[in-house]
């Protein structure tokens, strides 16, 4: 007699007649597969009955799930995310260079020059005066189309730098002051709302 899982379930739950019960026991004695099947049913039964009596408190589950933020930090950005981040760094177009325009109007001293960059919806005006032999003292103004405010400017030597060369505050009118050596920089305008900063690369201080 080959036992079915249904017969074994009925045997386990005590619903068989004495004769059927005896027949099942005889078959069980002969078959290790049938005994294993019965054990699986018995394990299922004891698990279901034991589990019905308790549950993990929702707060404990929430706390364990919250550890997922630490798991998430392990994630490497995908190729497309890296590409997207790189694309967010807007390349600035030089729209005005006073040295190419002849007369220099409105600059203090007369030894300096003025540059204007356009990058997306951002316009940056820079008045560069020599501070000493190696450094330019810059008075800048940021003009932004839209309502976002950028109270902080960080200046990086290149896109891969993690530490800025310098940083400065931008006042409510968009004015800021910097002192940098000649070079090509990335300007990072840090947003007041804590959102994504705007990176403008290709700011060339000759």
């Amino acid at each position, binding site marked *: 007699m080959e036992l079915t899982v249904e017969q074994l379930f009925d045997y386990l*739950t005590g619903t068989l007649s004495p004769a059927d019960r005896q027949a099942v026991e005889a078959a069980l004695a002969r078959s290790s597969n049938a005994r294993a099947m019965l054990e699986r049913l018995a394990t299922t039964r004891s698990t279901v009955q034991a589990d019905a009596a308790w549950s993990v408190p929702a707060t404990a589950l929430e706390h364990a799930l919250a*550890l997922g933020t630490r798991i998430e930090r392990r994630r490497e950005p995908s190729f497309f995310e890296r590409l997207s981040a790189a694309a967010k760094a807007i390349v600035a177009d030089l729209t005005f260079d006073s040295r190419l325009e002849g007369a220099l109007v409105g600059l203090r001293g007369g030894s300096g020059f003025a540059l204007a960059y356009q990058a997306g919806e951002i316009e940056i005006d820079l008045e560069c005066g020599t501070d000493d032999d190696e450094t330019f003292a810059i008075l800048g103004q940021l003009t932004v189309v839209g309502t976002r405010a950028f109270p902080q400017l960080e200046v990086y030597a290149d896109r891969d730098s993690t530490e800025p060369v310098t940083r400065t505050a931008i006042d409510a009118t968009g004015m800021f002051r910097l002192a940098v050596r000649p070079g090509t920089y990335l300007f990072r305008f840090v947003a007041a709302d804590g959102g994504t900063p705007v990176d403008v690369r290709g700011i060339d201080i000759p």
Partner: protein
Amino acid sequence: MSYESDASLVDACARGDRRAWDVLVTRYSRLVWSIPRKYGLPESDCEDVHQTVFSALVRHIDELRQRERLASWLITTATRECWRLRRSTRTRAALTGEHGSAAEDLPAVPLPETDRDEEERQLVREGLATIGERCRDLLTALFAAPANPHYPEIAERLGIPIGSIGPNRARCLEKLEAILRGLGVRRAAE
């Protein structure tokens, strides 16, 4: 992304897949909690063990060698944490003169086969989780009955015709048997 095997689940977590972590915690939360509960620890201690085990998993996820034996790792880590709790409770009791904590009364040695029992129970939970809602509800109702299941009551509770219980019972039991055998629950002696 399939998280069917523990190895694939652990791999996904190690790569920072938050959804995989959610699946892992949901799958194993009850198993982890069952260990301190088995030792009769109070709920606050169970919660400590539960959180400590999952925190340890986050920290050591790269170091898990046999990723397909995740359940075993969780049971061992939870058991160790129960013992650590016991030691610290004893130390505190010795210092303060207070006795009688549940953690202090853990059995002298955890029985090795107990771990296997817990793993088997976990496999049963996984089997029931994958079998499909209708079969799961029916089998849970059938197995939950302390003795002879009362079919009219089950039919009413599940909102199904009583005549459908017989054929569905046969189909679902066969399905569960195939799943549990595949998962390696209570293999027949060779």
